[in-house]
């Protein structure tokens, strides 16, 4: 275990560049993270040495590719403390994982009058799939409210408890808000849902790779995340599902790799997880994901989470001194994940992001795939700075200096 983060930047080749004549300060990690040399090398090694299709071939390369792919599955099970590698389904990302639950489990199990609960702080990817399946089944979608003028109060858990009853079949929520930096009490939310007889679906896009995730201790039924938000390649994601639930689900897509026997009259499918992996899977990126997990655990996930939260808290404190700024999410001193979202009274987020880019500081401006929450907070958009293991206190200073310059420039 290492907690010295000062040199980790050197592990990420893409960070070795200048933007706007200054060293790149990359603070858009909640959108996607960069990849360490170890991940890039794992991809190159696979394509240079082992590239082949999996589960079908009897030749050496195919066996190596299959071993690599299944080793990635086993590694993912360990990464999430899942009981069994068969509970790990590889997908293209969090969005595909949540849609798989919505269409694979919820569509078959929801009836008119049933209720799906999600939250007002959900990313569109954990909201729209539920809107679609509720439309298809006649179920109703309800939202746990977010409290506080700046959403500083997090989820209204008392309101959540009042919403729970026999009709509730699914509770879907984000572990960490990509917009607010709020860390939701996942274990508590899952326990209450379970007591009411509902299944739980956790959007882990912002938590996997940032802290130790133990799906069994959390007590969730499904947990979804994307590789690219935790140092792994794009195009690979994971759905963890409790074995019993996965085995009860029909396939979402048909094709090769997910069947036992195919007749012209019909087919019989394989058990999970292959049942949900029709077609040639994303072998290379699963192997890249494996390398990313090894890398993150070599650094230590709890240390990464602590490092990011410390930087975000520093940014929060420094930014709060700026005139006309409105900071969203947990207040100073409250637990906060590694990101800060804010808006200036007189300078629009897109002007902020364009300006910061000229300073070599990469930020995100917009609604962060959370339009309803932005409307509720009365904001068209915010600027977001999100941190990862390779960011430093110097990056926070560069952010704050850039924001000071923009306020001066716009005479705000």
């Amino acid at each position, binding site marked *: 275990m290492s907690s010295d983060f000062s040199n980790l930047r050197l592990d990420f080749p893409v960070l070795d560049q200048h933007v706007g004549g200054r060293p790149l300060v990359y603070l858009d990690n909640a959108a996607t993270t960069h990849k360490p040399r170890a991940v890039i090398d794992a991809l190159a090694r696979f394509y240079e040495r082992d590239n082949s299709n999996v589960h079908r071939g009897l030749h050496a390369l195919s066996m190596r590719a299959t071993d690599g792919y299944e080793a990635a599955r086993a590694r993912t099970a360990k990464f999430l403390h899942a009981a069994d590698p068969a509970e790990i389904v590889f997908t293209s990302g969090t969005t595909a994982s949540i849609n798989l639950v919505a269409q694979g489990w919820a569509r078959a199990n929801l009836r008119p009058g049933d209720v799906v609960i999600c939250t007002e702080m959900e990313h569109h990817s954990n909201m729209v799939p539920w809107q679609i399946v509720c439309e298809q089944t006649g179920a109703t979608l309800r939202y746990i409210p977010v409290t506080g003028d700046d959403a500083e109060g997090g989820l209204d858990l008392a309101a959540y408890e009042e919403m729970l009853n026999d009709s509730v079949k699914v509770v879907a929520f984000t572990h960490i808000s990509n917009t607010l930096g709020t860390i939701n009490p996942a274990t508590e939310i899952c326990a209450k849902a379970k007591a009411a007889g509902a299944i739980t679906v956790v959007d882990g896009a912002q938590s996997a790779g940032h802290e130790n995730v133990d799906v069994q201790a959390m007590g969730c039924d499904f947990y979804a995340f994307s590789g690219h938000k935790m140092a792994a390649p794009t195009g690979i994601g994971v759905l963890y599902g409790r074995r019993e639930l996965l085995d009860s689900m029909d396939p979402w897509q048909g094709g090769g790799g997910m069947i036992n026997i195919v007749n012209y009259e019909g087919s019989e499918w394989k058990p999970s997880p292959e049942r949900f992996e029709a077609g040639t899977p994303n072998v290379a990126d699963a192997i890249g994901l494996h390398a990313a997990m090894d890398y993150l655990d070599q650094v230590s996930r709890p240390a990464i989470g602590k490092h990011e939260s410390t930087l975000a808290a520093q940014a929060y404190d420094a930014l709060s001194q700026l005139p006309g700024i409105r900071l969203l999410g947990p207040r100073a001193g409250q637990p906060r994940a590694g990101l800060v979202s804010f808006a200036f009274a007189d300078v629009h987020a897109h*002007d902020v992001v364009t300006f910061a880019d000229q300073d070599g500081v990469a930020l995100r401006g917009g609604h962060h795939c959370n*339009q309803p929450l932005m409307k509720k907070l009365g904001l*068209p958009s915010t600027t977001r700075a999100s941190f990862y293991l390779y960011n430093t206190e110097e990056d926070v200073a560069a952010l704050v200096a850039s924001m000071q310059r923009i306020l001066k420039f*716009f005479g705000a």
Partner: protein
Amino acid sequence: MSDLTDLYQAVILDHNKRPRNRGKLPQATRWATGDNPTCGDNCTVYLEMDGERIGEISFEGSGCAISQASASLMTTQLKGKTLSEAEESFGEFKDIVTTGREPEEFNEVAAFAGVHAFPARIKCATLAWHAAVDALKQPDQIPTN
């Protein structure tokens, strides 16, 4: 910082800070709204027609300095114009923001030439113009208040 100064010329900063013709026109008979769903910007343009010409024009909405200044400046450019004249002006404006070429005759819209170096911001500059042309194409309606 020269690129940024080009993008945010004094004209743009001024129109952003002191927008002209901002707010709803109570006697408007045509209006249309444009949205940039990816950034959450929106702009509604209101028209009071004088025959086939724009008698009065205003806008409201929210967005970045580029979109707000563009909307403000646009209202000063389109007053008195017909649909075809407005489309011609929009064509010239699009040319300016996509190529950076400045108009031959002096015109404040030349301030937007710097936008061409920031392709992601072109849609901010054209949002209000799209809404204005859309509004001109609407049938006349009864003013809402």
